[in-house]
């Protein structure tokens, strides 16, 4: 017996079969249940763990179809359109799912129908049924109104109106229904009768293309896994090539014989369909995984799916960079991104602001899009650089000291440097249009010490504080 707190009252949220026979039901307050059955054993509900378990079951179901959606707190919807024949037909597929789950110790109810609403209703009232297309309306007619899984008030209203079965509800005029219960209820009713469709909201991004390989005997060696990935990549490439597309994101899913599953994704900067490139990127990814791929008793199914594709068109020749070079660079970027993460390999882009630390953006090179902004030099030709080569991202406070002889010193990181030259100030105001109260404006100075090091300092605030912002070459 599982109990959970609903509307500030402890109510039963899951009930054992024996208890059901004794008249307990989900939703009953715990106090009432205790009154009828004092010897009740109660466990507190643990919803996060339930969800985790359901996720694992959904992962396991992925082997039948990539389109698995959650349905309420303890249901799963599988869209098996076009997948059933791979498992010997609809009835065989349903039986296999139900029996496998039962063998793993779950209580299962399942049914198959043309729409999600109908399938849900049959799962509750006709466990194990496969309803042929077009027969939903007559099969569902004798089921009670509760099978529609409407909200409590609507179901109650139907019952009070004397409409006890779905068939009776369906026999009423739609206009009456819409006026009384709204268009949403009528849409659900239509779907229950097998008309209209409701899109599933899948758990995972829907794969656009996929290829998979089943193994009669689970495989565990690295060579076989690699060879399989390569052959799957080749199969996928031929599909992509026909469509003139290339993949930006590929996902390999490894189904372990004991039900565990591992997904490994790679991303590419440009649409790719070269099997050799794909295999290489996967190999790098598998080599550098912090948590290596554990074959356990072996994998019995490997699937390669393309979840993001883009049109791959022939590149227009460029004058200064040949196509080959571009492809080489993007392959290098992909490899480095696969190994270190795409946020670690960066390209620079200009940014339209005069704030020194924000004047450029370091964007992941894989996703860098060409911008219309141009790089603009601040210095005049012939002048020395006006911006330092190395810029500190954290505040580096410095103190300026004047000795008795009038020479100035600069103290930074506990070391004193004599000031030999100083140029400035260059005043940079903060952007008042971005901030409610803009930070104080900064006066920048270029300072050279006795050894020739050139610092970029600024003074800001009242009383003025000095900071080192960067160092020139």
């Amino acid at each position, binding site marked *: 017996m599982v109990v959970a707190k609903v509307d500030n009252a402890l109510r039963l949220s899951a009930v054992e079969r024996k208890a059901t026979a004794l008249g307990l039901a989900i939703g009953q307050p715990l106090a009432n249940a205790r009154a009828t059955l004092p010897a009740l054993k109660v466990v507190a509900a643990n919803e996060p763990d339930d969800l985790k378990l359901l996720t694992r079951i959904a992962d396991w179901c992925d082997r039948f179809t990539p389109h698995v959606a959650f349905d309420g707190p303890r249901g799963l919807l599988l869209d098996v359109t076009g997948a059933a024949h791979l498992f010997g037909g609809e009835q065989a597929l349903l039986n296999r799912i139900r029996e496998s789950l039962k063998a793993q110790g779950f209580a299962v109810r399942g049914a198959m129908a043309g729409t999600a609403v109908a399938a849900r209703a049959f799962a509750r009232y006709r466990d194990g049924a496969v309803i042929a297309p077009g027969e939903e309306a007559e099969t569902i007619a004798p089921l009670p109104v509760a099978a529609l899984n409407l909200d409590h008030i609507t179901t109650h209203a139907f019952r009070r109106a004397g409409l006890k079965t779905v068939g009776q509800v369906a026999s009423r005029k739609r206009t009456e229904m819409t006026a009384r219960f709204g268009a949403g209820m009528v849409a659900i009713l239509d779907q229950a009768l097998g008309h209209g469709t409701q899109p599933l909201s899948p758990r995972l991004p829907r794969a656009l293309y996929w290829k998979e390989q089943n193994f009669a005997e689970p495989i565990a060696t690295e060579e076989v896994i690699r060879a399989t990935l390569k052959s799957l990549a080749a199969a996928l490439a031929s599909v992509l090539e026909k469509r003139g597309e290339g993949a930006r994101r590929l996902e390999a899913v490894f189904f372990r014989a004991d039900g565990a599953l591992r997904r490994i994704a790679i991303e590419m900067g440009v649409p790719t369909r070269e099997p050799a490139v794909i295999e290489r990127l996967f190999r790098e990814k598998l080599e550098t995984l912090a948590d290596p791929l554990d074959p356990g008793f072996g994998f019995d199914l490997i699937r390669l799916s393309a979840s993001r594709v883009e049109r791959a068109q022939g590149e227009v020749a460029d004058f200064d960079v040949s196509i080959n070079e571009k492809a080489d660079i993007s392959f290098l970027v992909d490899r480095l991104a696969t*190994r*270190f993460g795409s946020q670690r390999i960066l390209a620079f882009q200009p940014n339209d602001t005069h704030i020194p630390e924000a004047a450029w953006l370091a964007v992941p090179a894989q996703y860098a899009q060409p911008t219309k902004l141009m790089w603009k030099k601040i210095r005049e030709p012939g002048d020395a650089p006006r*911006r330092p080569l190395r810029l500190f991202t954290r505040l580096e406070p410095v103190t300026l000291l004047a000795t008795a002889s009038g020479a100035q010193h600069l103290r930074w990181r506990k070391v004193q440097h004599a000031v030999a030259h100083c140029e400035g100030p260059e005043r940079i105001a903060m952007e008042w249009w971005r901030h409610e109260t803009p930070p104080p404006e900064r006066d920048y100075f270029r300072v050279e010490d006795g050894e020739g090091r050139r610092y970029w300092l600024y003074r800001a605030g009242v009383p003025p504080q000095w900071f080192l912002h960067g160092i020139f070459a």
Partner: protein
Amino acid sequence: MRMEKIAALRASLARPGLAEASIRIPLGHAAADLCLKGGLERGVLHEVFAAIGHEAAATGFTAGLAARVAARKRLLWIRQDYSALEFGELSATGFLEFGIDPARLLLLCVADAADALRATNDALSCAALGAVVIEIPGRPKILDLMASRRLTLACVQKTVTAFLLRFNAEPEASTAETRWLVRAAPSPPQAENWGHPVFEAGLIRNRHGRTGEWVMEWSCDDGLFKEADRGAVVSAPCDRPAAAARQAASR
């Protein structure tokens, strides 16, 4: 028979890899170029050591060398997270002002030296890159003679040039073609405004030539090194008879 042999020899000499690998890129500084027999060799490993406290100057010097060698190709700069915190993050506007187009730069951030070396091996096999700069602070154990030999071999296979930029480190045995020790050069005391970046660059090792020490100015507009025209600082010439005699004795 003899003609055939000559033709075969000619063909072997005309192999594209061989011709490209031996290209030397002049730096622009006449004395240094003379010492380097025409310029910095492409497709090999070079080392630049920063004098303590002169990390930014060494960064600029290496950026200049890499930009020269890479010509119009892209540059990959591999830096460690620690290096950005300690010595400052590389600034795109800084590179722009320095005379290097930031659009040519790729920045790879890695956690440690082992990752940096692994990434370098990947990068050196990509012929589309012009140069790879690897910034390594301190003296990681992994960077030994074996690692530098591996880098040299990886360079030789292709035409990518590698620059090992070392901060807070002492030179040790390596297979680098050249090794530089760089510090910033002070401006003359009476200067009105300071000019382009000036370096005191010491060529402390050169596998195929003499060593020397020069004061070089990086011309941000032309993208090459020049003699610094300042009277106060005199460069130590490498081609004086005494210096040559000393080097001959030490050899």
